[in-house]
């Protein structure tokens, strides 16, 4: 019998975002899990613990949407260096110029109105 959880996985995720971090979970071998869960999925071992991502990733897939009368925006799937994938958008570059394979770095978009904070990505400048 486990004790009742005091915060849900999504609330813990949001707490990380509020601190300016992209949080994710890892199993006892350090394998990343995302989206956050109360228990590890099949193939993972031990309890899940929270970690903060270094924020670096690579664009895995990309699309853009141009709603009538609004500016176009990007929607991308980003593979993080820690081994998990998430949906987000790449900013600071035209939505139609985002390319698979681009290196990107997370930044936390602040809460606005009803929407809480969420991670977005900027291009990693070529060294």
């Amino acid at each position, binding site marked *: 019998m486990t004790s009742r959880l005091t915060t849900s996985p999504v609330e813990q995720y949001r707490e990380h975002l509020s601190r300016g971090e992209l949080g994710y979970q890892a199993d006892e071998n350090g394998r990343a899990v995302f*989206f956050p869960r109360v228990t590890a999925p099949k193939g993972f071992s031990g309890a899940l613990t929270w970690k903060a991502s270094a924020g670096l990733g690579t664009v895995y897939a990309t699309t853009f*949407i*141009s709603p009538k009368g609004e500016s176009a925006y990007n929607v991308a799937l980003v593979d993080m260096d820690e081994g998990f994938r*998430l949906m987000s958008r790449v900013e600071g570059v035209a939505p139609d110029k985002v390319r698979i394979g681009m290196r990107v770095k997370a930044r936390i978009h602040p809460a606005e109105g009803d929407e809480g904070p969420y991670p977005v990505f900027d291009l990693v400048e070529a060294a």
Partner: protein
Amino acid sequence: MSAGLTRGAAAIVGVAESDLGEVAAGMSVIDLMAQGVAGALEDCGLSLSDVDGVFAAAGQSRMPTVALCEYLGVKPRYHDSTMQGGSSFMTHVAHAQAAIEAGLCEVAVIAYGSTQRSAGRKNVAPREYNPYETPFRPVMPASAYALAASRHFHQFGTTREQLAEIAVAARRWALMNPKAWEKSPLTASEVLGSRMVSHPLTVRDCCLVTDGGGALVMTSAARAKTLRKPPAYVLGTGESISHLTISNMADLTVTAARESGAQAYAMAGLKPKDIDVVQVYDAFTITTLLFLEDLGFCPKGEGGSFVMDGAIAPGGKLPVNTNGGGLSYCHPGMYGLFVLMEAVRQVRGECGERQVPGCETAIAHGNGGVLSAQSTVILGAASTL
């Protein structure tokens, strides 16, 4: 799913659409299911008093079998509301066969209805809020398929022009189907020049938004032989689920149709080259392409070149989606039932102008969610038993 089921032990014996396109004001999804059931029973010469199994799924009904039983006054021995989106009905076929083989029922109806067009899509299909996707405002489901297309373009050099060929082929078939929603020809340049929904998919790469429903009747092989029309025997079935949300699909270029198809082929004892007509759920042009690859009609990555030069259009080397598909015939939201209906009609040889000559085998592949829940059925005429 196929392990344990017997090739050819059950058959689809009746099929019918309900009203399609834009139905009369106030029609409910259960009205459409009931129209389908009445038509499908008439098609095979059975009546409601024969029905002892009821299967149904609908986006607009929480308890569709219960609602349908109330409406029809039927008390089935067996019922099943399995809901996995557009492939629900292929899974219903497998589950109905299991129930029939186990003696849990003998005559099963499988029904669907949707009024998404007349009721307004926003009213009937509210999307669940997902804290890991919704903030990014993907246009779902189109953006999920657009992301898959972006990967296919990147890895294999597939082009928008190749996807457009799929929409053009579907339209050419639809022009031979009197029940199809779309009635006028479509060119590749019109597809490419249409409004972009989520790059690289334009509105012509996307399925229609219509009302519609229908039903199938299934029974044992023994009973099927006594009925009005040639049975379409269930030779093979397969099911596989890989994810729910597109963020959690491991490889956006490879779907679980590989597994569901492999199971169905194994049970049927058939290979892709043995299939006479291919019906796949074409929610988007990229969907057709992925399923042609994953069901083994061309190697992975070659779907784009495979569909060129009218290869899947009337007169091409492989007849695909001969009713015009979700792209041009009808798409009420969970299109899988119509995929099965066309496969049955082709195996029966009753498709008129669009009939594939000498059609003895058909594959009917369903897709649920965003490439999430895959389910395959292979049907055959009596000659294949």
